[in-house]
Protein backbone atom coordinates (compact mmCIF):
# COMPACT_ATOMS: atom_id res chain seq x y z
CA UNK A 1 0.00 0.00 0.00
CA UNK A 2 2.70 2.38 1.13
CA UNK A 3 4.97 1.42 -1.74
CA UNK A 4 2.24 1.83 -4.28
CA UNK A 5 1.66 5.37 -3.17
CA UNK A 6 5.33 6.15 -2.66
CA UNK A 7 6.58 4.93 -6.03
CA UNK A 8 4.73 7.47 -8.19
CA UNK A 9 5.66 10.19 -5.77
CA UNK A 10 9.33 9.26 -6.07
CA UNK A 11 9.02 9.07 -9.84
CA UNK A 12 7.49 12.54 -9.88
CA UNK A 13 10.21 13.91 -7.71
CA UNK A 14 12.94 12.48 -9.91
CA UNK A 15 11.80 14.71 -12.77
CA UNK A 16 12.96 17.79 -10.94
CA UNK A 17 16.63 18.64 -11.05
CA UNK A 18 18.06 19.06 -7.60
CA UNK A 19 18.62 22.71 -6.79
CA UNK A 20 22.20 22.08 -5.74
CA UNK A 21 24.07 19.65 -7.95
CA UNK A 22 27.19 19.40 -5.80
CA UNK A 23 27.54 19.32 -2.07
CA UNK A 24 28.20 22.49 -0.17
CA UNK A 25 31.42 21.03 1.22
CA UNK A 26 32.83 21.15 -2.31
CA UNK A 27 31.99 24.81 -2.72
CA UNK A 28 33.71 25.63 0.56
CA UNK A 29 36.83 23.89 -0.66
CA UNK A 30 36.67 25.75 -3.98
CA UNK A 31 36.35 29.04 -2.10
CA UNK A 32 39.27 28.14 0.11
CA UNK A 33 41.43 27.44 -2.93
CA UNK A 34 40.61 30.86 -4.36
CA UNK A 35 40.89 32.73 -1.07
CA UNK A 36 43.72 35.21 -0.83
CA UNK A 37 45.20 35.22 1.77
CA UNK A 38 44.81 31.51 2.52
CA UNK A 39 42.87 30.74 5.66
CA UNK A 40 45.12 30.96 8.70
CA UNK A 41 47.63 33.02 6.76
CA UNK A 42 48.26 36.74 7.15
CA UNK A 43 47.32 39.09 4.34
CA UNK A 44 50.22 40.40 2.28
CA UNK A 45 48.82 43.86 2.92
CA UNK A 46 49.42 43.51 6.65
CA UNK A 47 52.53 45.63 7.26
CA UNK A 48 54.42 44.70 10.43
CA UNK A 49 54.26 47.64 12.84
CA UNK A 50 58.06 47.74 13.14
CA UNK A 51 58.34 48.53 9.44
CA UNK A 52 56.31 51.73 9.83
CA UNK A 53 58.84 54.53 10.21
CA UNK A 54 57.07 57.54 8.74
CA UNK A 55 53.70 58.71 7.45
CA UNK A 56 54.79 57.57 4.03
CA UNK A 57 54.69 53.95 5.21
CA UNK A 58 51.00 54.40 5.96
CA UNK A 59 50.03 55.05 2.34
CA UNK A 60 47.69 52.25 1.24
CA UNK A 61 48.27 50.02 -1.79
CA UNK A 62 44.74 50.72 -3.09
CA UNK A 63 42.15 48.36 -4.54
CA UNK A 64 41.77 47.02 -8.05
CA UNK A 65 39.47 49.07 -10.32
CA UNK A 66 35.87 47.85 -10.32
CA UNK A 67 36.01 46.43 -6.81
CA UNK A 68 34.91 47.72 -3.43
CA UNK A 69 38.10 48.51 -1.48
CA UNK A 70 38.67 46.92 1.91
CA UNK A 71 39.97 48.96 4.84
CA UNK A 72 43.32 47.19 4.59
CA UNK A 73 43.55 48.15 0.92
CA UNK A 74 42.50 51.76 1.27
CA UNK A 75 42.61 53.13 4.84
CA UNK A 76 45.40 55.66 5.22
CA UNK A 77 47.22 57.67 7.87
CA UNK A 78 46.27 57.31 11.50
CA UNK A 79 43.22 55.24 10.62
CA UNK A 80 45.48 52.71 8.90
CA UNK A 81 47.89 52.65 11.83
CA UNK A 82 45.01 51.87 14.17
CA UNK A 83 43.69 49.06 11.95
CA UNK A 84 47.17 47.53 11.45
CA UNK A 85 47.68 47.69 15.22
CA UNK A 86 44.36 46.01 15.96
CA UNK A 87 45.10 43.24 13.44
CA UNK A 88 48.42 42.57 15.17
CA UNK A 89 47.09 42.77 18.69
CA UNK A 90 48.62 46.17 19.50
CA UNK A 91 46.53 48.89 21.11
CA UNK A 92 47.92 51.90 19.22
CA UNK A 93 46.02 54.44 21.30
CA UNK A 94 46.48 53.33 24.87
CA UNK A 95 43.31 54.93 26.20
CA UNK A 96 43.09 52.85 29.35
CA UNK A 97 42.97 54.74 32.65
CA UNK A 98 46.10 54.82 34.81
CA UNK A 99 46.86 51.95 37.12
CA UNK A 100 44.50 52.39 40.07
CA UNK A 101 45.06 49.03 41.73
CA UNK A 102 47.16 50.58 44.48
CA UNK A 103 48.29 53.83 45.95
CA UNK A 104 51.51 55.11 44.45
CA UNK A 105 54.44 55.67 46.82
CA UNK A 106 57.74 57.47 46.35
CA UNK A 107 59.49 54.11 46.26
CA UNK A 108 56.94 52.60 43.89
CA UNK A 109 55.08 55.37 42.04
CA UNK A 110 52.26 54.96 39.52
CA UNK A 111 53.94 55.27 36.13
CA UNK A 112 52.51 57.84 33.71
CA UNK A 113 53.85 57.36 30.18
CA UNK A 114 54.22 60.46 28.04
CA UNK A 115 55.37 61.27 24.52
CA UNK A 116 55.81 64.94 25.40
CA UNK A 117 57.82 67.06 27.81
CA UNK A 118 54.85 67.65 30.10
CA UNK A 119 51.92 65.51 31.08
CA UNK A 120 48.84 66.02 33.20
CA UNK A 121 47.32 63.12 35.10
CA UNK A 122 44.12 63.11 37.14
CA UNK A 123 44.20 61.41 40.53
CA UNK A 124 40.97 60.09 42.04
CA UNK A 125 42.63 58.31 44.94
CA UNK A 126 42.71 54.68 45.91
CA UNK A 127 40.31 52.93 45.51
CA UNK A 128 39.54 54.81 42.27
CA UNK A 129 36.96 57.59 42.58
CA UNK A 130 37.42 57.99 46.31
CA UNK A 131 37.99 61.73 45.85
CA UNK A 132 37.28 64.30 43.15
CA UNK A 133 39.73 64.46 40.26
CA UNK A 134 42.84 66.38 41.17
CA UNK A 135 45.03 67.23 38.21
CA UNK A 136 48.75 66.82 38.66
CA UNK A 137 51.23 68.27 36.22
CA UNK A 138 54.47 66.42 35.62
CA UNK A 139 57.38 67.37 33.44
CA UNK A 140 60.54 65.66 32.28
CA UNK A 141 62.46 68.00 34.57
CA UNK A 142 60.38 67.11 37.56
CA UNK A 143 58.76 63.75 36.90
CA UNK A 144 57.37 63.02 40.37
CA UNK A 145 54.08 64.49 41.61
CA UNK A 146 52.17 63.70 44.76
CA UNK A 147 48.40 64.11 45.10
CA UNK A 148 47.70 66.68 47.82
CA UNK A 149 44.47 64.91 48.72
CA UNK A 150 45.41 61.24 49.11
CA UNK A 151 49.19 61.30 48.82
CA UNK A 152 49.38 58.92 45.89
CA UNK A 153 52.61 59.39 43.93
CA UNK A 154 52.86 59.53 40.14
CA UNK A 155 55.95 59.47 38.02
CA UNK A 156 56.29 60.52 34.41
CA UNK A 157 58.09 58.08 32.17
CA UNK A 158 59.18 59.71 28.96
CA UNK A 159 58.66 57.44 25.95
CA UNK A 160 58.90 60.05 23.18
CA UNK A 161 61.73 60.61 20.72
CA UNK A 162 65.20 61.01 22.15
CA UNK A 163 66.93 64.36 21.93
CA UNK A 164 67.43 65.61 18.39
CA UNK A 165 71.24 65.51 18.01
CA UNK A 166 71.18 68.36 15.48
CA UNK A 167 69.05 70.75 17.44
CA UNK A 168 70.72 72.58 20.32
CA UNK A 169 68.83 74.94 22.54
CA UNK A 170 66.11 76.23 20.30
CA UNK A 171 63.38 76.94 22.76
CA UNK A 172 63.55 73.54 24.39
CA UNK A 173 62.70 73.63 28.06
CA UNK A 174 65.18 70.94 29.09
CA UNK A 175 68.10 72.66 30.75
CA UNK A 176 71.25 70.64 30.62
CA UNK A 177 72.76 72.64 33.46
CA UNK A 178 69.87 71.88 35.82
CA UNK A 179 70.36 69.58 38.76
CA UNK A 180 67.30 67.52 37.77
CA UNK A 181 65.29 68.87 40.65
CA UNK A 182 64.85 72.55 39.88
CA UNK A 183 63.40 74.15 36.79
CA UNK A 184 65.34 77.37 37.00
CA UNK A 185 68.12 78.99 38.94
CA UNK A 186 66.96 80.34 42.25
CA UNK A 187 63.72 78.34 42.40
CA UNK A 188 62.42 78.31 45.98
CA UNK A 189 63.49 75.29 47.93
CA UNK A 190 61.06 73.05 49.77
CA UNK A 191 61.24 70.83 52.82
CA UNK A 192 62.28 67.93 50.59
CA UNK A 193 65.47 69.79 49.64
CA UNK A 194 66.60 69.63 53.24
CA UNK A 195 65.08 66.37 54.49
CA UNK A 196 65.01 64.01 51.50
CA UNK A 197 66.64 65.60 48.46
CA UNK A 198 66.21 62.36 46.52
CA UNK A 199 62.42 62.83 46.67
CA UNK A 200 62.53 66.03 44.69
Amino acid at each position, binding site marked *: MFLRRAAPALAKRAVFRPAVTRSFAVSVRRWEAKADPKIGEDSKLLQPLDSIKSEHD*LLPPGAAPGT*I*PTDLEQATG*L*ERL*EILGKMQGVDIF*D*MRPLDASRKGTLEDPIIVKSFGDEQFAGCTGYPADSHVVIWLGMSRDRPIERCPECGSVYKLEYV*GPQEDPHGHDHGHDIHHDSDGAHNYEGEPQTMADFVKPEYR
Partner: protein
Amino acid sequence: MSNLNRSIFQGHPFHLVSPSPWPLFTCISLLTLTTSAVSGMHGFESAGYWIPSALILVISSMFLWFRDVISEGTYIGNHTLAVQKGLNMGVALFIVSEALFFLAIFWAYFHSALSPTVELGAQWPPIGIEAINAFELPLLNTVLLLASGVTITYSHHSLIQGNRNGALYGAIFTLVLALVFTGFQGVEYSVSSFTLTDGAYGSCFYFGTGFHGLHVIIGTIFIGVGFWRMLAYHLTENHHLGLESSILYWHFVDVVWLFLFLSVYYWGS
Protein backbone atom coordinates in the same frame (compact mmCIF):
# COMPACT_ATOMS: atom_id res chain seq x y z
CA MET B 1 56.35 49.00 17.38
CA SER B 2 59.15 50.82 19.10
CA ASN B 3 58.42 53.91 21.12
CA LEU B 4 60.65 55.90 18.78
CA ASN B 5 58.45 55.05 15.76
CA ARG B 6 55.24 55.38 17.75
CA SER B 7 56.12 58.90 18.82
CA ILE B 8 55.99 60.07 15.19
CA PHE B 9 52.21 59.70 15.26
CA GLN B 10 49.79 61.38 17.63
CA GLY B 11 49.20 59.55 20.87
CA HIS B 12 45.42 59.80 20.93
CA PRO B 13 42.78 58.73 18.40
CA PHE B 14 40.90 62.04 18.25
CA HIS B 15 40.84 64.46 15.37
CA LEU B 16 41.91 67.92 16.55
CA VAL B 17 40.64 69.93 13.64
CA SER B 18 42.92 72.42 11.93
CA PRO B 19 42.02 76.09 11.41
CA SER B 20 39.35 76.43 8.74
CA PRO B 21 37.50 79.41 7.21
CA TRP B 22 34.28 77.45 6.60
CA PRO B 23 32.61 77.87 10.01
CA LEU B 24 32.84 81.65 9.61
CA PHE B 25 31.69 81.48 5.97
CA THR B 26 28.76 79.30 7.00
CA CYS B 27 27.76 81.68 9.80
CA ILE B 28 27.74 84.70 7.49
CA SER B 29 25.89 82.79 4.76
CA LEU B 30 23.23 81.56 7.19
CA LEU B 31 22.77 85.05 8.62
CA THR B 32 22.36 86.40 5.08
CA LEU B 33 19.85 83.67 4.28
CA THR B 34 17.73 84.31 7.40
CA THR B 35 17.68 88.09 7.04
CA SER B 36 16.88 87.92 3.33
CA ALA B 37 14.20 85.28 3.90
CA VAL B 38 12.59 87.39 6.62
CA SER B 39 12.72 90.51 4.42
CA GLY B 40 11.22 88.48 1.60
CA MET B 41 8.38 87.34 3.84
CA HIS B 42 7.76 90.97 4.75
CA GLY B 43 7.55 92.03 1.14
CA PHE B 44 10.89 93.76 0.68
CA GLU B 45 11.48 94.25 -3.00
CA SER B 46 15.06 93.10 -3.50
CA ALA B 47 14.62 89.92 -1.48
CA GLY B 48 14.02 88.09 -4.74
CA TYR B 49 17.71 88.63 -5.50
CA TRP B 50 18.99 88.23 -1.97
CA ILE B 51 17.37 84.87 -1.14
CA PRO B 52 18.81 82.93 -4.11
CA SER B 53 22.22 84.58 -3.62
CA ALA B 54 22.21 83.68 0.08
CA LEU B 55 21.14 80.15 -0.74
CA ILE B 56 24.04 79.84 -3.18
CA LEU B 57 26.36 81.11 -0.41
CA VAL B 58 25.06 78.53 2.09
CA ILE B 59 25.33 75.69 -0.41
CA SER B 60 28.85 76.78 -1.42
CA SER B 61 29.96 76.94 2.22
CA MET B 62 28.55 73.46 2.85
CA PHE B 63 30.17 72.15 -0.32
CA LEU B 64 33.60 73.52 0.58
CA TRP B 65 33.36 72.42 4.22
CA PHE B 66 32.23 68.87 3.38
CA ARG B 67 34.95 68.70 0.73
CA ASP B 68 37.50 69.32 3.48
CA VAL B 69 35.86 66.70 5.73
CA ILE B 70 36.06 64.15 2.90
CA SER B 71 39.75 65.01 2.39
CA GLU B 72 40.46 64.57 6.10
CA GLY B 73 38.52 61.32 6.38
CA THR B 74 39.27 59.58 3.10
CA TYR B 75 42.62 60.97 1.97
CA ILE B 76 44.44 61.86 5.22
CA GLY B 77 43.04 59.12 7.45
CA ASN B 78 42.01 61.30 10.38
CA HIS B 79 38.79 59.36 10.93
CA THR B 80 39.91 56.68 13.37
CA LEU B 81 37.34 54.44 15.06
CA ALA B 82 36.90 56.95 17.89
CA VAL B 83 36.28 59.77 15.40
CA GLN B 84 33.81 57.63 13.48
CA LYS B 85 31.98 56.93 16.72
CA GLY B 86 31.73 60.66 17.43
CA LEU B 87 30.49 61.43 13.91
CA ASN B 88 27.91 58.67 14.19
CA MET B 89 26.74 60.07 17.51
CA GLY B 90 26.44 63.52 15.93
CA VAL B 91 24.26 62.15 13.13
CA ALA B 92 22.06 60.31 15.66
CA LEU B 93 21.60 63.49 17.72
CA PHE B 94 20.83 65.46 14.56
CA ILE B 95 18.11 62.96 13.66
CA VAL B 96 16.68 63.18 17.18
CA SER B 97 16.48 66.96 16.78
CA GLU B 98 14.78 66.47 13.41
CA ALA B 99 12.28 64.10 15.04
CA LEU B 100 11.41 66.79 17.57
CA PHE B 101 11.04 69.31 14.75
CA PHE B 102 8.44 67.08 13.11
CA LEU B 103 6.83 66.45 16.50
CA ALA B 104 6.13 70.19 16.66
CA ILE B 105 4.59 70.11 13.18
CA PHE B 106 2.35 67.17 14.10
CA TRP B 107 1.44 68.94 17.33
CA ALA B 108 0.27 71.98 15.35
CA TYR B 109 -1.74 69.68 13.07
CA PHE B 110 -3.42 67.72 15.86
CA HIS B 111 -4.09 70.91 17.80
CA SER B 112 -6.33 72.05 14.94
CA ALA B 113 -7.57 68.65 13.80
CA LEU B 114 -8.53 66.95 17.07
CA SER B 115 -10.92 69.69 18.23
CA PRO B 116 -11.85 71.69 15.13
CA THR B 117 -13.26 75.09 16.09
CA VAL B 118 -16.69 76.30 15.14
CA GLU B 119 -15.17 78.50 12.42
CA LEU B 120 -13.99 75.32 10.68
CA GLY B 121 -17.50 73.90 10.89
CA ALA B 122 -16.51 71.87 13.97
CA GLN B 123 -15.28 69.14 11.65
CA TRP B 124 -12.03 67.93 10.07
CA PRO B 125 -11.33 68.39 7.24
CA PRO B 126 -12.95 71.80 7.70
CA ILE B 127 -16.18 72.55 5.91
CA GLY B 128 -15.64 73.25 2.22
CA ILE B 129 -12.21 71.59 2.05
CA GLU B 130 -11.85 68.80 -0.50
CA ALA B 131 -9.15 66.62 1.06
CA ILE B 132 -6.91 64.45 -1.12
CA ASN B 133 -7.94 60.79 -1.36
CA ALA B 134 -5.32 58.89 0.63
CA PHE B 135 -5.65 55.84 -1.61
CA GLU B 136 -4.68 57.59 -4.83
CA LEU B 137 -1.29 59.33 -5.18
CA PRO B 138 -0.41 59.24 -1.44
CA LEU B 139 -0.69 55.43 -1.33
CA LEU B 140 1.48 55.17 -4.46
CA ASN B 141 4.01 57.50 -2.84
CA THR B 142 4.00 55.31 0.29
CA VAL B 143 4.82 52.30 -1.89
CA LEU B 144 7.58 54.27 -3.66
CA LEU B 145 9.21 55.33 -0.40
CA LEU B 146 9.02 51.85 1.13
CA ALA B 147 10.52 50.42 -2.08
CA SER B 148 13.34 52.98 -1.88
CA GLY B 149 14.03 51.66 1.63
CA VAL B 150 14.46 48.20 0.11
CA THR B 151 16.78 49.38 -2.68
CA ILE B 152 19.00 51.41 -0.37
CA THR B 153 19.33 48.39 1.95
CA TYR B 154 20.29 46.31 -1.10
CA SER B 155 22.89 48.94 -2.00
CA HIS B 156 24.29 49.04 1.55
CA HIS B 157 24.60 45.27 1.91
CA SER B 158 26.12 44.96 -1.55
CA LEU B 159 28.75 47.49 -0.48
CA ILE B 160 29.49 45.53 2.70
CA GLN B 161 29.83 42.31 0.68
CA GLY B 162 32.15 43.95 -1.84
CA ASN B 163 29.66 43.88 -4.73
CA ARG B 164 30.32 47.19 -6.49
CA ASN B 165 27.67 46.87 -9.20
CA GLY B 166 24.97 45.96 -6.69
CA ALA B 167 25.91 48.89 -4.48
CA LEU B 168 25.84 51.36 -7.37
CA TYR B 169 22.60 50.05 -8.91
CA GLY B 170 20.86 49.95 -5.52
CA ALA B 171 21.74 53.59 -5.00
CA ILE B 172 20.63 54.52 -8.55
CA PHE B 173 17.23 52.85 -8.06
CA THR B 174 16.85 54.61 -4.72
CA LEU B 175 17.60 57.96 -6.33
CA VAL B 176 15.11 57.29 -9.14
CA LEU B 177 12.38 56.30 -6.66
CA ALA B 178 13.13 59.41 -4.59
CA LEU B 179 12.91 61.69 -7.62
CA VAL B 180 9.65 60.06 -8.75
CA PHE B 181 8.26 60.57 -5.23
CA THR B 182 9.20 64.26 -5.32
CA GLY B 183 7.67 64.59 -8.77
CA PHE B 184 4.40 63.03 -7.62
CA GLN B 185 4.28 65.33 -4.62
CA GLY B 186 4.67 68.21 -7.09
CA VAL B 187 1.77 66.83 -9.13
CA GLU B 188 -0.33 66.51 -5.98
CA TYR B 189 0.46 70.09 -4.94
CA SER B 190 -0.44 71.44 -8.38
CA VAL B 191 -3.82 69.66 -8.56
CA SER B 192 -4.96 70.11 -4.95
CA SER B 193 -7.97 72.37 -4.43
CA PHE B 194 -6.69 74.11 -1.26
CA THR B 195 -3.69 76.37 -0.69
CA LEU B 196 -1.25 77.33 2.05
CA THR B 197 -3.25 80.49 2.83
CA ASP B 198 -6.74 78.91 2.93
CA GLY B 199 -6.81 78.46 6.67
CA ALA B 200 -5.90 75.87 9.30
CA TYR B 201 -6.19 72.86 6.99
CA GLY B 202 -4.04 74.21 4.19
CA SER B 203 -1.45 75.61 6.60
CA CYS B 204 -1.09 72.35 8.53
CA PHE B 205 -1.12 70.23 5.36
CA TYR B 206 1.59 72.16 3.53
CA PHE B 207 3.58 72.73 6.74
CA GLY B 208 3.86 68.96 7.27
CA THR B 209 4.09 67.66 3.71
CA GLY B 210 6.20 70.63 2.57
CA PHE B 211 8.87 70.12 5.20
CA HIS B 212 8.75 66.39 4.54
CA GLY B 213 9.25 67.08 0.84
CA LEU B 214 12.19 69.35 1.64
CA HIS B 215 13.71 66.56 3.72
CA VAL B 216 13.19 64.10 0.86
CA ILE B 217 15.09 66.46 -1.45
CA ILE B 218 17.92 66.83 1.10
CA GLY B 219 17.97 63.06 1.63
CA THR B 220 18.14 62.51 -2.13
CA ILE B 221 21.17 64.82 -2.35
CA PHE B 222 22.70 63.07 0.68
CA ILE B 223 22.31 59.63 -0.94
CA GLY B 224 23.51 61.15 -4.22
CA VAL B 225 26.75 62.18 -2.50
CA GLY B 226 27.07 58.65 -1.11
CA PHE B 227 26.54 57.29 -4.63
CA TRP B 228 29.23 59.55 -6.04
CA ARG B 229 31.63 58.53 -3.27
CA MET B 230 31.07 54.85 -4.09
CA LEU B 231 31.67 55.65 -7.75
CA ALA B 232 34.88 57.53 -6.84
CA TYR B 233 36.14 54.62 -4.68
CA HIS B 234 36.00 56.66 -1.46
CA LEU B 235 33.99 54.12 0.49
CA THR B 236 35.35 50.81 1.77
CA GLU B 237 33.29 47.79 2.78
CA ASN B 238 33.76 48.73 6.42
CA HIS B 239 34.22 52.50 6.55
CA HIS B 240 31.37 54.34 4.82
CA LEU B 241 29.91 56.54 7.53
CA GLY B 242 28.64 59.19 5.12
CA LEU B 243 26.56 56.65 3.22
CA GLU B 244 25.36 55.06 6.47
CA SER B 245 24.29 58.48 7.74
CA SER B 246 22.39 59.17 4.53
CA ILE B 247 20.66 55.80 4.88
CA LEU B 248 19.74 56.57 8.48
CA TYR B 249 18.41 59.95 7.40
CA TRP B 250 16.46 58.37 4.55
CA HIS B 251 14.78 55.85 6.87
CA PHE B 252 13.87 58.71 9.20
CA VAL B 253 12.26 60.62 6.31
CA ASP B 254 10.47 57.40 5.36
CA VAL B 255 9.04 57.00 8.88
CA VAL B 256 7.88 60.64 8.93
CA TRP B 257 6.03 59.95 5.68
CA LEU B 258 4.28 56.94 7.24
CA PHE B 259 3.05 59.18 10.07
CA LEU B 260 1.99 61.84 7.56
CA PHE B 261 0.18 59.25 5.47
CA LEU B 262 -1.64 57.79 8.44
CA SER B 263 -2.58 60.99 10.26
CA VAL B 264 -2.80 63.72 7.59
CA TYR B 265 -3.80 61.85 4.44
CA TYR B 266 -5.82 58.89 5.82
CA TRP B 267 -7.22 59.90 9.22
CA GLY B 268 -7.37 63.59 8.28
CA SER B 269 -9.54 63.04 5.20
